[in-house]
């Protein structure tokens, strides 16, 4: 996971993983990385530039469980989704 995290900017570049994000295992790994970043940064940007698809399974494992783990207010104030296409945005919002 270290390769995809730019610690200076607290940004996770999902395109470095691939254009298609689908597994629960991957979702759980990234959730852990996001929590680490949240603990040491004001804001964590989740950059989906170059990502075509995320699945409900991935979004559920990564983002819904993240929201439940860190509570809703912290999630809303410290996490931002950027460069999501319409499909990715729909899947993530529906999973939350």
């Amino acid at each position, binding site marked *: 996971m270290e390769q995809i995290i730019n610690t200076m900017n607290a940004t996770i570049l999902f395109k470095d*993983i*691939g*254009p*298609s*994000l*689908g*597994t*629960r*295992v*991957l979702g759980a790994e990234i959730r852990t990385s996001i929590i680490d970043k949240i603990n040491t940064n004001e804001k964590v940007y989740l950059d989906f530039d170059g990502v*075509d*698809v995320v*699945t*409900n*399974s*991935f979004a*559920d494992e990564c983002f819904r469980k993240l929201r439940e783990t860190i509570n809703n207010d912290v999630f*809303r104030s410290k*996490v*931002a*989704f*950027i460069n*999501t296409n319409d*499909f990715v*945005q*729909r*899947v993530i*919002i*529906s999973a*939350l």
Partner: protein
Amino acid sequence: MEFQISMKDLAKSHSQTLKICNELVQQFRIEPTTEVRIDFAECTFIYPDYALLLLCTIKYIESLGYNVKGKIYVSQSSVPVNYLAGMNFFENLQVKLPFQVDSANGDSSVTIQRYTKENQLEVLNSILKILRDKSSMNDNVYTGLDYCFNEILDNVLNHSEEKEGWVAAQYFEKINSIRLIVCDYGIGIHKSLNIKHNFDEEEAIFKCIEEGVTNGKGQGHGLYATSEFIKLNKGWLSVISGNKILNVSDKETVIKDIDNWQGTSIYIRINTNVEVDYTAFTSKNYDYKEKVFGDMFG
């Protein structure tokens, strides 16, 4: 004792393939030293999904501890033999053909691949890339295929209680169609859903495409979304598990009895030129949740 498999007979239909695969399993249970004879005589065409079902069955028998050995009768000029060689069918059976084959399958086939959680994304992306590059697929069809294929692959590893699955695919340019199959020899849908429910076998396979029906390890969305995508695309979905097959199309959803399949197989056929509105299967509670979380997206 010898067990003969005529590839000509096997290649007739899914039900015929499943019948032969089941007989092969039963044969090894009765006679563990059985020798298998696979004969390609008079076989002029075979779909990759039929071949993968046979391959997966042999892997299953080996997983039970039996040593599967025998002979494969092939002709160098056989089109199906060359095709399956290009799909790595023989390689996956650890059989080396005694001659060079013309394995150029027009670059529109996806070789038979074993996948695990370690290489799942790599396998998925390599398959999607081939299908995207070789077919003139509408963008929304591609997105739907990507989404559903991901969910199907993940389902196998999350629910089968096996550590591997098998996959193969083929694009047919003349009819704008993709056939794709994912197989495992795990616990099957009935046992998997009954970790949480108390369904009979027919209920289980019918319920597995309903939204929210899950064994607790997921959200029960993957096969629901896949079935909705297939209906919108006017394609075909078969869910094969145990003694049942569930067939889904835009016209009907039906369950039939089949010879036993030891795990689960998901077969889809999609039309690359039939547009799909993905909001129909990705937007559960979207309007409400968009009001709550929409400002987090920029």
